[in-house]
Each structure stands twice: as C-alpha cells, then as structure tokens.
C-alpha cells in the first residue's frame, strides 16, 4: 500500500487540518508517513500545499517526485490546477469548485474548472455550499476530505477517529460538525 497525496489550498482554508486527519489515521493503523509543507508567510492568503506520503514500507523522500502523485486534494480550484504536473497518469484530482479570489488577476472560474475536467479522473464539488447547508461553513475542507476518503486506502472509521482526536480539544460541537462534513463529502462522492 502506497499513496502519494498533494493537499492544496490558500492559507487559512484548513489544509493543515486535512493533513492532520490523514496523519492521525495513518499513525493509528501503523503506516509509515512523511509530510512536508510550506508554512509561514504563505499562511496569509498565499498558496499553501503539503506533500503527504503514506506507505506500508519505509518512505525515502519527503517530497513526491513530479508525475508521481496518486491524488490531489484541493480546497480551491486554481490551486488544484497548479499542482497537475505532480499527478501520475492514473491519479485523481478532487477539488472544491468555490474559488478563493484574493488577487486581481484571478482567471475565469469556468475556465479553471474546464481545465480540471480535461483530466478524466476528477471529482469537482462545491464544498462551500455543502458546508453552508450543514451550517458549518468552516468545514469545507473536511467535506473535500470526505469526497477523497475512498481513495486514501484508509478505513472510513479511522478518519472519524482522527477527527475526534484532532478537534476534541475544541469541544463536541466542533467534532460533530466535522464528522457531519466528512459524511456529507463521502455521500456526495457516492452519488
């Protein structure tokens, strides 16, 4: 078992939480993992991404080689497109369709989405909308993770455990909101 995942988005969209949930779940089942991310300045509205590698064997490189990622999970459509050169020929891209427009020259959203759809293995979902319906607009990141959940090679229950572990400190409401977001994403994918 080996999964190389790019997690992408804009600073503040919660990509660190996505990585943490996958990370906790992998540690629970005893997989090897390596993660490398860009922090710091990028947290303020800049592009952020994380290289995330899971395997049942020891992992060598902290960075995924170009063209070797199995999955791109993105909370923002243009950020998904940015990392396409990382994806392998069998890879899936799973992305939010709600753009985060904080720059004057953001391309036309329809064009971005149609570029993504050129790749047959894509799942595009309006995670912001789903999160709003669930009355927890901040959990769009976990909705996306829910959509990606069948591709991670991890049991769904382990992701739920990881959410309880990660958000437990913030109280039961936050845990439940994120569990609901995960489920909604998973169900969207199954539809």
């Amino acid at each position, binding site marked *: 078992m080996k999964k190389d995942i790019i997690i992408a988005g*804009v*600073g503040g969209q919660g990509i660190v939480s996505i990585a943490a949930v996958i*990370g906790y779940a*992998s*540690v629970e089942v005893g997989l*090897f*993992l*390596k*993660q*490398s*991310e*860009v*922090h*710091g*300045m*990028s*947290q*303020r*509205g*800049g*592009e952020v991404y994380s290289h995330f590698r899971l395997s049942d*064997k*020891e*992992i*060598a*490189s*902290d*960075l*995924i*080689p*170009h*063209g*070797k990622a199995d999955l791109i999970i993105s909370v923002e459509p*243009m*950020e998904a*497109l*940015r990392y*396409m*050169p*990382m*994806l*392998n020929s069998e890879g899936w891209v799973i992305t939010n369709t709600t753009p985060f427009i*904080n*720059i004057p*020259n*953001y*391309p*036309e959203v329809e*064009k*971005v989405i149609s*570029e993504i759809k050129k*790749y047959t293995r894509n799942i595009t979902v309006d995670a912001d909308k789903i999160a709003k319906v669930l009355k927890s607009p901040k959990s769009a990141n976990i909705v996306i993770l829910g959509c990606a959940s069948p591709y991670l090679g991890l049991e769904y229950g382990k992701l739920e455990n990881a959410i309880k572990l990660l958000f437990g400190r913030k*109280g039961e409401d936050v845990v439940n909101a994120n569990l609901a977001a995960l489920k909604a994403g998973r169900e969207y994918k199954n539809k």
Partner: protein
Amino acid sequence: MRITTRLAHSHSSVNTSEQKAQNQIKTPEDSIQYVLLPSNARKRYKKLLASQPSLEEESENSGYNKFVDGKDKSLGIIVSGIAYNYLLENFDGGEIPFPFIKISQYPLPKKMIEKLCDECNEIMVIEEGYPLIEESISGLLGRGIKVRGRFDGSIPRDGELNPNIVAQALGLETLQSNPVSDIIVGRPPSLCDGCPHADTFRAINEAMAEHSKGRNFSDIGCYTLGALPPYQSINSCVDMGASITMAKGAADAGLLPSISVIGDSTFTHSGITGLLDAVNDKSPITIFILDNYTTAMTGGQFSPANGRIEEICKGVGVEAEHIRIIEPLKKNHNDNVRIIKEEVAYNGVSVIIPRRECVVTLTQKSKEKKKAKQ
C-alpha cells in the same frame, strides 16, 4: 545538525521511548573555562585544536558516516541530509549501484573520502543548500579528481533539491508529467483584510510622498509584507533589530528624513538597544512601533512589552511629547498623516505607535467569548 528549509518543514511519525531524566546540575571543574579573556581564549583554542584528531577518528568510526559499496565505479557519490532521501527515492529505497558515502557527522571523514576517490572515476556531491562539502573536498584549485555537483552545473547552483533534480544529475530518466496550465497565476501572501498594518502603510506612504523613495527601514514580522504591492512602503528587512539601527545609520550618513518600522514584539527582542543609541545621538529619525498586541507572524504569541511600550520608550529617553499614539483606521487617515508629517519634521528621535489589535487574534478572542457565553 545542518538545518535546511525542507528538513524544517517535514514531519513524520516517530517511535517514542521512555524520557531520560534531566542531567544533574554541575558547574565546570575549571571555573574560568567559559571566561574568554584573551589569555584564556588562546588556551581554549589550543585545546580545541588538540581534540581534532580524536574528532576525526570518531567521524571515521562512529557509524554515523557510512561508506556503502556499489558495483559501478564510474561514479562515487557523497550525499548528506535530506539529499540522501532523494537519492534513495530514485532507487525505490533499494540498492544504489554506485559506491556512496552518507555524511551525518563532521569533521568530514577524510579516509572514507580518500577511499571513494581512489576507487571511482568521478565524484558527485549531492547536498541541500550551500555546497559546503563540495567546496571543502574540491578545494580552491579543483585539481585532481573531477568533483561534480553545484559548482560544475550537474546540480543547479541555487535552490532546493528534490528527487527530480537528483535523478537528472545522475542521468536517470524522469517521468513525463502533465503540463502546467497557462491560465494559472501566482498568489503571493498578503496582509489580512482589515489588518492594522495596512492602514499604517497607507498613512506612511502619503506622509512620505513628498520625499524620494528608499527611506523606510523595516524589520521582520507580518509588516514585512509592506514591501509588496499595493503598499511598496518598506525598503529593508535584514534580521531582527536591523530597522531602528539602519535608519539611524542612514540619518547619520545624511539621508534625511529616514524612518523605521518595527513590530511591538520585535521591538522588545532587539529594538530597544538601537533606540537608546538613537536617543543618545539625538538622531533625527521617526520610529513606528507597530503595536498589534501580539506576535502575529509566528502565530499570535504573547508580546512581551504589552501595555508598556510608551514607558519603555520614555525610560530609554525619548521625549514624552514625541511619543505619539495613533489608531490605524481609515477614518483617522488624515489625522494620522498629519501626525506623521509633524514627527518626521522634528529634528530628533520620534516614536509613533500605531495601535490596533491584530484582526486574527481579535476574531479568535471574540469566538472564545461567544463560546464562554453559551
């Protein structure tokens, strides 16, 4: 350990074992060991040099530096740090056909390296960051065995390594990958919506518009983003503390007016000494201490001078009437510009404190309050 960017940004699961007890408190037997009076410093340096052979010995034999043999002697590889991970990645974590040395301990293991050079036609050094190992083994003249790496262009002279760069250097095939879509644009970091620093920079820019550019010496913090559009307000950021001191240097050298911006947290770290120096010399500079009540850039930690910045400035000797507090808000813009102009015109040290809470910590606090009420 040689810390590099990628190493600092990587994590992985680790195996834990029982924590060791803290060492016993023990003062040095030689009570002036750490007193570097010249006479003592000379003695200590001799001692350091005398320990070199045993360190070299350790380096060859400790097991941290490894010589791993390989069949293909056309190339010998010297690799260190995270570059080793990239090397392994290119052979799927399996056997590497070339003999190689993995460096994990200094000084460099001379005998091991000599053996590698004797056996192989060429040497390639793969290391993250500056080519330190490469430079030390190829020497100034680079005569003798051919050493490849960052200097001969086998590996780019600058920038981070990655598995693909290492593959290319070794002449291995790299995968064809998807093209980069040409509609993508860059997304540089920016100040948050509603950030107090933004209003401060707008006011500074207007107040300084009548002077030529290049006079604002800044420090490190969120406000360093004031270098980028749309503000383009600051002209330097070197290290913590190099703001007030550089403005003073510029003013002393005749660049008038010179101004400086520094965050409240960085001010306590290394701004106060420079301020004292400016006060002593009555240097005509205007210093902005950007008080957002927090250490925003590193995640909102406590700011050590919280509530005492004016007192510290007064204590250091800044005249009370030249310590001005402004509230960086759009509605105060004209007043703030006027105050800045007044202080910039003053022929001595002025401190302006733009004071308004960081929007990130403010939102966090209001959320916590809401939760407490529930």
